[in-house]
C-alpha cells in the first residue's frame, strides 16, 4: 500500500480528503505510483504529468522522505519507506495566494 499526499487543489479535483492509499502492482516508481493514482482518479490525468509524454509538469514536484525526487528518472525505484507505506509520496504544487 502506497500513501500519497496531494496538494489542496488536486484533492479537490480528485474529491478526496487527506492522504490517499493506493495499491501499486510491480516495482514502486514515480511512474507506477502516478499511473495507479490516475487510474483510480481519472480527473488527475494531465495535472501532474503530461497526458501523452508522461513528463512531470514544471509547476509540480515530487518528494519522498523529505528529498526532492522530481529530477530522478520516473522509473527509478522509490525509497523503501515509501514502497512499504511508512512514508508518503508527496506531491507539491505551485500556489500563488498571498
Amino acid at each position: 500500500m502506497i500513501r500519497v499526499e496531494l496538494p489542496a487543489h488536486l484533492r479537490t479535483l480528485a474529491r478526496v480528503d487527506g492522504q490517499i492509499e493506493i495499491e501499486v502492482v510491480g516495482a514502486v516508481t514515480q511512474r507506477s505510483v502516478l499511473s495507479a493514482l490516475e487510474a483510480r482518479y481519472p480527473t488527475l490525468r494531465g495535472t501532474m504529468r503530461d497526458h501523452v509524454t508522461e513528463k512531470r509538469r514544471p509547476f509540480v514536484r515530487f518528494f519522498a522522505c523529505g528529498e526532492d525526487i522530481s529530477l530522478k528518472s520516473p522509473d527509478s525505484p522509490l525509497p523503501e519507506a515509501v514502497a512499504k507505506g511508512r512514508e508518503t509520496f508527496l506531491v507539491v504544487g505551485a500556489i500563488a495566494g498571498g
Partner: protein
Amino acid sequence: MSSVSLTNEEILRYSRHLIMPEVALAGQEKLKAARVLCVGAGGLGSPIALYLAAAGIGTIGIVDFDVVDSTNLQRQIIHTTADVGRSKVESAAEKISAINPHIEVRHFNVALSSENALEIFSDFDIVADGTDNFATRYLVNDACVLSRIPYVYASVFRFEGQASVFAAGDGPCYRCLYPEPPPPGTVPSCAEGGVLGVLPGLLGVIQATEVIKLVLGAGDSLVGRLLLVDALSMRFRELKLARNPDCPVCGENPTVRHLIDYEEFCGVRGEERHNDAIGGTSATGSGALPEIQPEELKALLDRGEDIVVLDVREPHEREISRLGGPAIPLGDLAERVHELDSSRDIVAYCKVGVRSAKAVEFLRSIGFRRVRNLAGGIDAWAKRVDPSMPRY
C-alpha cells in the same frame, strides 16, 4: 559595524532585542540600517510590514497598486474597516509609522512591472514577496536574481502555505523549484478557492523572521529548504531544495538576462485578472471561449428565452447565492454530463468565471456547441445585475 546609531529612545524601545546576544546593539543597528521591500500590502504583506516595523527595520518599502476592499479585512490586518476604499500603500504606511515613528516608509502606489521592478529594487537589500499571482511572483524572482537581492517567499491557499528564501548565496531560486507556472485557471486563486484568514499571518510572520535573520546574519535561513505549512493538521514540514544548474535565470547558462513579459509567460491573463474580464471571449489554456455578459443574460432570461443556467460551483457556495438552473460541480461534470441537453443553450457560471470557463471548454470538447461562459461569474452578476445578492 553599521554606520547608524540608536538614540536613547530607540535603545529603550528595542531593549528586548538588545539583551539577546544574537541581536544586541550591533544587530539592532544592522536592522536600522536595513532596507526591506514588501511587494504587496495584503494577507502576507500585512504581518511582514507590521513586524518588520516593530522590529526596527530602518527603511521599509511597500509596493501595491490596489485599494482596500471589505473582503480583504478577514486577513489583511494592516488595514481597518475605516480604510475600505483607500490606497493600500497609504493605509499600510500610516500603520507602520504609528507602530514605529523611527523608521522610514517608502511607498510605491504602482503595479510592479518589468519596467519599474529593477529600479525600485535597487534601493533595497531584501525583498519579501506578498503578492497574489504567478506573474508577479516570477517577476519578483527574476528581478531579485538579476539584482542579487535575497527573495523571501511565501504563498498560501486554503489551509496550506509554502515558504522559502530564494536567490540568496548559492541557494536555488523560485524558478529552480517551479520553472513554469500552471496554465491560467488550473490552480485556483484565493479569490476562487478561499484562504483561512490567519494562514497568511502564519506565513507572513515566517517571512518577517527570515528577513530579520538575513539582516542579522544569524541562524539557519530557509535557503535551500521549502517549508510546508498545513494549518488544518498543524504540521510543519521541510523539504530540501537544490539549485537547478539548468535554471533559465540562475543556472550556469542563463537565458533570461533581463525582465520579460510576465503576463504572457503566465498565460494570456493572470487568473486574478480574470475576475474583471469583459468582452466576448474567455482566456483559457486552449484559446478563446464564447462568453456572455451578466446584463445580456439577464435580458435574455427576462425575455423568456430557453437557457439552461448551469452552476458549476460547490454545494456550499450554492448556499450563499444562486441563479437557478441545474448544479453540477466542475469535478463531477464529466460523470454527469448526460444530465445536460446539448441542443439547448447553456450558460455556465461559477464564482468569477474561471471554473465555468473550464466547464465550457470541456463541454465544447465533447460536442456541445451552444454553451457559453458567464463573464465574471455570479460575482459580476451580483455587482452589475442584482446588487441585493450577497457576494463572497
